């Protein structure tokens, strides 16, 4: 499908709104097990996308995703800037101008591999990958796919609570990272739920 300008703009605006609305929550999650900057960093990045929403939405989908990725790399900082930036830059390369569900799934699969490489991380290490990978695994041909993926993301973020961090700053805490939701998993599930809403969830 070709995504029209209004849909692209609404996606950017709503993703920015959800990150801004949850910035304090993301920060407190990150204060528990990281360096406490995830909320403020993500908010800064997504506010810069919001400020550019009209220009971004006017671009073809791959160009828009590339611009979003570059902007997140430059504005978010921390470790999440390059990780989310890499996710969007990889999607931009693979998705094509008018993706069907299968194209989108394949692009998402490549993007997850790119995030793994950037973070030198694997599934099961209490990171954003522990939301992204289950969502990919749940991505099938069912009716009501968007709602299914949204719910999968929510449950997967919850499932990071008992995990022990192996990558990132949280890994310094060892067993003490157990019992807290991973902030990157939370921000990923928020974004996936927000995007899914526009596709029928």
């Amino acid at each position, binding site marked *: 499908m070709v995504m029209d300008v209004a849909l692209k703009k609404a996606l950017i605006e709503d993703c920015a709104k959800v990150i801004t609305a949850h910035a304090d929550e993301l920060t407190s999650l990150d204060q528990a097990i990281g360096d406490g900057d995830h909320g403020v960093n993500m908010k800064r990045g997504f506010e810069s996308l919001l400020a550019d929403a009209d220009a971004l939405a006017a671009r073809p989908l791959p160009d828009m995703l590339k611009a979003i990725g570059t902007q997140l790399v430059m504005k978010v*900082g921390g470790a999440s800037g*390059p990780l989310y930036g890499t996710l969007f830059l990889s999607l931009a390369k693979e998705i094509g101008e008018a993706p069907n569900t299968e194209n989108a799934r394949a692009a998402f699969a490549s993007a997850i591999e790119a995030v793994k490489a950037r*973070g030198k991380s694997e599934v099961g290490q209490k990171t954003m990958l522990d939301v992204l990978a289950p969502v990919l695994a749940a991505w099938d041909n069912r009716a009501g796919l968007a709602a299914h993926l949204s719910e999968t993301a929510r449950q997967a973020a919850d499932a990071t609570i008992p995990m022990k961090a192996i990558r990132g*700053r949280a890994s310094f805490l060892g067993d003490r990272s157990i019992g807290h939701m991973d902030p990157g998993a939370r921000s990923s599930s928020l974004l996936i739920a927000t995007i899914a809403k526009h596709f029928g969830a």
Partner: protein
Amino acid sequence: MANVGIVIVSHSEKVAEGAADMVRQMVGDAVPLAFTGGNSEGGLGTDVGRIMEAIDRAWSDAGVAVLVDLGGAETNTEMAIEMIDETKQQRIVICNAPIVEGAVIAATEASGGSPLDIVKQTAEELSPQ
């Protein structure tokens, strides 16, 4: 051929600046040297744009060796390298070494005119194998 340049990337501008001061005092001005630390708002962190600028300031045709501190500094430096002109990318390396000692040792090696791979190798001999 010019000497290899050294770039220091820390989460803290003070750490980066202090490490650079030590390099200047112990090695002198024979190597191009740049440092960056902190995020775009002056807090602790690392910033891809600033890292790209630091690599540019320390640029040498012999290449640039980058010393980093904690994880995000490495991730952001890798991202910065990928966003730099492709013809330069292969002449930029990240040294897996302690940031202060690594910067001094790498700069010492570079000041004698050693090529980039030797500079990197010498710095990395400091890391536990």
